[in-house]
């Protein structure tokens, strides 16, 4: 079976799931469509099992944060080794309490990828077997890849703020200049006098 273009895949999915599949975005860089979070698992199962689609490889699973739209979008990149075609899909979640079904049951690769998204974006995946923080310590506060994340300035009393040596030099220069101006009072200008004499 030949590789399908994103349009064909999108068409096929819309036929099957109707409203749950959003429109394919304008064919600019990488075209993508949205999946309704409520039917995500169902769609993903179809993606993997349908012989025409056969997306056996979850190439990437990540998220993007959009504070203006109050959304966190989970981005799925699917790839099929059998047909060598690709699909990008997104799930739009509420930013306040992002929650979506885990696709770990479909692709094992989702295990760690979802843990990472949970860690860095705070998205919780229902049905995930082992949803713990992965890159950050368990007691870390906040989700760093969110746009409004504020750095705490350290972790467990260990500061991560360092002196900027260049600023120290700048201050030293300024102090030196001030010192100089204090020590040496401005010399009365003699030049005009000299002119007058001549």
């Amino acid at each position: 079976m030949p590789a399908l273009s994103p349009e064909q895949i999108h068409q096929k999915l819309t036929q099957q799931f109707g409203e749950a599949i959003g429109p394919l975005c304008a064919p600019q860089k990488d075209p993508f469509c949205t999946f309704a979070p409520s039917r995500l698992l169902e769609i993903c199962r179809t993606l993997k099992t349908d012989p025409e689609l056969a997306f056996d490889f979850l190439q990437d699973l990540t998220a993007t944060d959009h504070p203006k739209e109050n959304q966190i979008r989970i981005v799925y990149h699917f790839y099929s080794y059998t047909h060598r075609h690709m699909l990008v899909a997104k799930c739009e979640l509420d930013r306040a309490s992002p929650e979506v079904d885990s696709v770990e049951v479909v692709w094992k690769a989702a295990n760690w990828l979802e843990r990472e998204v949970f860690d860095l974006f705070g998205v919780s995946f229902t049905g995930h077997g082992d949803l713990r923080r992965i890159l950050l310590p368990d007691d870390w506060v906040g989700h760093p890849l969110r746009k409004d994340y504020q750095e705490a300035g350290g972790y467990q009393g260990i500061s991560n703020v360092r002196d900027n040596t260049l600023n120290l030099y700048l201050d030293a220069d300024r102090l030196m200049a001030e010192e100089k101006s204090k020590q040496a009072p401005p010399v009365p200008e003699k030049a005009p006098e000299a002119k007058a004499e001549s």
Partner: protein
Amino acid sequence: MALEQIVITRKFGPGAEEEMILNMGPQHPSTHGVINFIVHADGEVMKKAVPEVGYLHRSIEKIGELVTFSGFMPYTDRVDYVAAMFANEGYAVAVEKLLGVAPPARAQYLRAISCELNRIASHLVAVGTMAMDIGAVTPFPYALREREYVNDLIEALCGARLTYNYHRIGGVAFDLPPDWAPNCHRFLDHFDRILDEWDRLISLNEIFVRRLAGLAVIPGPMAIDYGLVGPNLRASGVDYDLRKVHPYGAYPDFEFKVPVGKGFAGKNRGGQVGDCYDRFYCRVLEMRESVSIVRQALHKIPEGEWMAKVPRKVKPPGGEAQSRVESARGEMAYYVVSDGGEKAARVRVRTGSFMAMGIIEDLSPGLMIADLVALIASLDVVAPEIDR
């Protein structure tokens, strides 16, 4: 039940008090960087090994949102410092895709040459450390010695030995220096013979082969399911190489084979498709292919510019793009989202090592502690690439 036992049972599950819980890492010599494994061992045999990563997390993806598009390039070096060229290239390709710029042909060739040399260097580290983890110390300096030659070549090309920052959005930073091509040819001829010697020294060593044959077998479907890429995937018998299947850059112009695992250790030694030895030997074979690619590229390289016309201030229009390059550790994908500003809205690096680590927990039951070391080495994980 003693209080201590109750605590252990609560923390690690029932039956845990019968096991020895071993903290392997993060300072263990053969975890290839700072990775921690919580090993549940029953004598020498493991019940499972749970990888704990993140010790080298430098929030590179966040930095990608804080610096300009072109300023992020040196940071990509740090994603995978063993094979930084690929990280450079992946990011450059992604932003080029967003900008709609195509690098000139010479730049494509220079990218291919630098990447393939880097692949040799990276695989040398992989196979060398693997030999060392199995206990053979001498092959490691041999591998690093050859890598030094590659480093010298790359240093002459771009001025750095490890953090290259050679690729630019729209091309590469430098053209080939004078006298570089003959030097490179000399190295390639020498390296071909060194690979033969390497095979005799370690690849065909009986102890080495038997240590790895039939060990931690990953069948093809499992490898795909867990998202393994690159040599790890090919060793499992999946004939898939981005350079062949979706050729990018200058790769359509080159002839090369894609080594696929087929139980290189031999049936009589218990070799199976997708065992540790296949992963090792696929890398050795890939080095040979890389040598041939560099040779072809040096012969075919066209004259011309090595940098496309790209504005100094890179401000791609809004949109998103994903680039996929075949790194030494498999498919590396940069997913870059631009909102039209001079900084990216999101940079995502999808790396091979991260996915490879994910498989260890499910592969480990029944392996021995010495096998875990071999498994980690055979997956060729590099800590910065896991944690980013």
